[in-house]
C-alpha cells in the first residue's frame, strides 16, 4: 500500500556548544583545625597569602599535616590540589612547564620519572633547599636521592621495608620460626611444602615482586662485602656496570633465587599470580606468608583483619648477623621555583621535616624515618624489622639508585623469564648489565 506523505521538513535543533570543564583539582580547602601543643613549628604571623599544595589523592596523613600547619598559620590560605596517580604526573608537569605550578609539590625520589627530584631539580623547576634545617641532618642515603650536583631539591621522610610478611599463628602451628640463614630458609621451604603449603606466596605477575627477592638478596650479599657499596654507587664513585661487589652479589642472588624456586619456596606458576592474588592466598591459609613492600600491608590487613602478621627479612648468607633490612625510598616534597609564596612553602616543608612529623609519617605509612630514631614506634606488623632498623642495619632498595628507569623494566622482564624457565642467570645478568647503559 502506498501512502502519500507530505513534504514536512523539520528543523532539528543544532547542538553546538561544547563546554569542557576540566576540573583536575580534587578539592580545595582552608584547613581550620586547632593546633596541638606538641606541634614543633610555632605559629608565625609573617606567613600569609595563598599556598597551593599538590599531591596524590588518598593520603590522609598529608591532609592532616596541612590541617595542622594551617591552624598554626591562620594568615595562610592553604589550597590542596589532589589528583589520582594516573593524571598527577602529566598534570603537574604541564603546570610546572608553564610556570604555573603549585607552591609545594609531591615528587618522587631519584630520577626514575619526569616528576622525580633529580629530573625537576636539573630542569630548574625546584627551589634549592640545601640550607633548610632538615637538609643538614638528612640521612646520607636519603640525601643522595633528592640531590643533584650538591643541591638538595626535596625532603624525603619515610622508607618502606621489603620482606616476608607472615601469619604468626600459621608459623606456630607448623612449628617453624623465621629462618635467619639461607640454608635454613631452604629447609623451612621444604618442610612447609611437605605439609601441603607454601612458605612464600609470590605474585610475580606484579612487576616489582618478580625481582624484589633477588634484588633484596643481592643487597644483603653486597652489604657483607662492602657496607658502603650503595653510598659509593649513589655518589658516582663507582658505576653499576663496573661494580664488582654489585655484579657478583646479583649473580649469587639470582642463583639463590633459582634454588628457592627448586626448593618449592613459592607456589607453582608464580608468574600467573598478582600481588592481590597472593595476599588472598595468605588470607585463606594456603600460604604462610608473602613477599611484599610494607606499603602493601593495609590491603593484606583488610583481607585478614584478625591475622597476627609479622615481618622477616630474607637471609642471603649463612650468618644470622649478616641480616640487613632493605627499604624502598618513599615519596618526597619540593618547592616550585615559580612559587609566589616561597617563605610559606619552605615553612611547610620544614614542618614536614621535623623529627616528630617524620616519625608520625612513618607510622601512618607502615615505614621508618630515614634517620635512625630509637624511639620510633614500630607497628606490630613490622616487629621483625624494628630490631634491624634500630641497629641501623638498613639499606635502600637498589632501584632508587639505578642510573635509569629502563633497568627496572629489564630486570622485571628478565626475572619473569627466569621464573618461567625461559632465561638463565647469565642471560639476566647480561640484560641488566646492558640496561645500565640506557639509551
Amino acid at each position: 500500500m502506498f501512502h502519500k506523505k507530505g513534504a514536512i521538513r523539520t528543523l532539528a535543533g543544532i547542538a553546538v556548544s561544547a563546554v569542557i570543564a576540566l576540573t583536575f583539582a580534587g578539592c580545595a580547602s582552608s584547613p581550620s583545625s586547632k593546633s596541638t601543643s606538641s606541634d614543633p613549628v610555632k605559629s608565625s604571623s609573617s606567613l600569609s597569602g595563598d599556598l597551593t599544595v599538590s599531591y596524590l589523592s588518598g593520603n590522609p596523613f598529608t591532609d592532616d599535616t596541612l590541617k595542622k600547619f594551617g591552624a598554626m598559620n591562620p594568615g595562610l590560605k592553604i589550597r590542596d590540589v589532589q589528583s589520582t596517580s594516573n593524571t598527577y604526573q602529566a598534570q603537574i608537569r604541564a603546570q610546572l612547564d608553564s610556570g604555573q605550578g603549585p607552591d609545594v609539590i609531591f615528587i618522587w625520589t631519584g630520577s626514575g620519572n619526569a616528576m622525580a627530584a633529580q629530573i625537576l631539580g636539573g630542569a630548574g623547576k625546584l627551589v634549592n633547599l640545601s640550607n633548610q634545617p632538615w637538609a643538614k641532618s638528612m640521612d646520607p642515603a636519603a640525601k643522595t636521592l633528592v640531590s643533584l650536583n650538591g643541591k638538595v631539591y626535596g625532603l624525603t621522610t619515610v622508607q618502606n621495608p621489603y620482606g616476608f610478611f607472615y601469619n604468626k599463628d600459621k608459623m606456630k602451628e607448623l612449628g617453624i620460626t623465621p629462618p635467619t640463614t639461607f640454608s635454613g630458609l631452604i629447609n623451612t621451604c621444604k618442610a612447609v611444602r611437605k605439609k601441603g603449603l607454601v612458605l612464600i606466596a609470590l605474585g610475580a605477575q606484579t612487576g616489582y615482586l618478580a625481582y624484589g627477592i633477588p634484588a633484596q638478596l643481592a643487597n644483603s650479599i653486597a652489604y657483607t662485602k662492602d657496607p658502603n657499596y650503595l653510598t659509593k654507587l649513589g655518589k658516582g664513585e663507582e658505576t653499576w656496570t663496573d661494580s664488582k661487589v654489585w655484579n657478583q652479589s646479583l649473580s649469587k642472588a639470582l642463583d639463590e633465587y633459582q634454588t628457592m624456586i627448586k626448593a618449592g619456596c613459592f607456589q607453582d606458576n608464580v608468574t600467573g599470580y598478582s600481588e592481590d592474588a597472593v595476599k588472598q592466598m595468605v588470607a585463606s591459609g594456603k600460604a604462610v606468608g608473602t613477599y611484599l613492600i610494607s606499603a602493601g600491608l593495609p590491603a593484606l590487613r583488610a583481607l585478614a583483619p584478625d591475622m597476627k602478621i609479622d615481618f622477616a627479612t630474607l637471609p642471603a648468607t649463612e650468618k644470622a648477623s649478616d641480616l640487613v633490612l632493605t627499604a624502598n625510598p618513599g615519596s618526597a616534597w619540593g618547592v616550585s621555583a615559580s612559587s609566589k609564596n616561597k617563605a610559606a612553602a619552605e615553612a611547610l616543608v620544614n614542618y614536614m621535616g621535623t623529627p616528630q612529623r617524620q616519625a608520625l609519617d612513618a607510622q601512618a605509612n607502615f615505614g621508618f624515618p630515614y634517620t635512625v630514631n630509637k624511639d620510633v614506634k614500630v607497628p606490630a606488623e613490622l616487629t621483625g624489622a624494628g630490631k634491624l632498623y634500630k641497629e641501623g642495619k638498613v639499606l635502600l632498595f637498589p632501584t632508587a639508585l639505578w642510573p635509569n628507569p629502563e633497568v627496572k623494566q629489564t630486570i622485571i622482564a628478565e626475572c619473569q623469564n627466569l621464573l618461567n624457565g625461559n632465561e638463565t642467570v647469565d642471560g639476566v645478568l647480561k640484560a641488566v648489565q646492558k640496561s645500565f647503559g640506557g639509551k
Partner: protein
Amino acid sequence: MTTLTQAPPTPPAQRTATRPVRAKGFGTPPWFAVPAFAFFTAIVAIPTVLGVYYAFTNWDGISAAPVFVGLDNFIQLFKTPETIQALGNTLLMALVITVAQNAIGLALAAGVNSRIKSRNVLRTFLFAPVVMTPIIVGYLWQFLFIPNGPIARLAEVVGIHNLNVLGDPATAIWGVMVVVIWQHAGYSMVIFLAGMQGIPEEINEAAALDGAGVWKRFVHVTWPLLRTPLVINITLSLIMSFKLFDQVMATTQGGPGYSTQTLSTLLYFEAFQFNHFSSGIALGVIVFVLTAVISFAQMRLFRDRNAA
C-alpha cells in the same frame, strides 16, 4: 501488498515556488562551522601536528627547547628487540581479534536476529561487556585465569593440567586476546544486527519461497547485504586492536617478559616510565600510520569489491 516499484509523487510546483527556502532545504551558513573548526584546530589539529614534530626531536617531557634529531628516535626504536616484539604482538592481536571478534559478533547477531521471546534480554546480556570499563574487565579475567582458578579447574576436567594462561609467555598473549574479544564481540554484534534488520523481510521470504534453506539464505541473501556493517566492524576492531592498552596493563602489564607488550604499552613505558617522551611520541606516530594505512587499504579493498 506493498507496491515497491511505484515512484513517490513529485511535490507540487506551486508549493516550491511560494516557499523557495524550504523547498531547497535548510542551508547551513558556512560560518556555523567556525566554532567547531576552532575547537578542532586548537584541541586536535595543532597538538597532533606538534606531536608529530616532537617525534623528530629529543624532547624529554619537561625541557622547553627540544632539539631536532631527524629520524633518530625511529631508528633507535627499531633497533631494540622489544619494539620488534611489540610490533609483532600488535599485528598478531589485530589480526586475531579482528577476525574472531567479528566472526563471533556475526554469529551472535544471527542468533539474536530471530523471533525468540528472549531476544531483547539476550541482546542486552551480550552487549553488557561492552559498557564495562576495560580495566575492570582485565582484573576480572586476571582472577578467572589465575592458576588453580576457575578456568584452570575447568581445564583440569578436560585433561589440561597446570594451566597458567597469563603467566606463561606462550599463552599469555592469547589470554589477553580472549579478554578483548569477550568484551568487544557484543559491539560487533550490534552493528551486524543493525545491518540485518535493515534487510527487507520480503527478500528473505522470496528466497524461502524459492526453496532456499536457512544457510543458503544467509550466504546468498544476508551476507552480501552486510558489506557495509562488515567494513565498519573491521575498521573499528582494527583501530581498537592497534591501540590496545587497558586490558594488557590490567592483566599482564606487558609480561611475562615482553610476551604481551604492544605498541601502546611500549609507548606508555617509553614516555611515562623511561622519560623518553620523543620516543613515545614516535611510537604513537607509528601506531597512527599503521592504523591509517591498514584501515585505508581494507576500505579500498571493500570499495573495489563493491564496485565490481
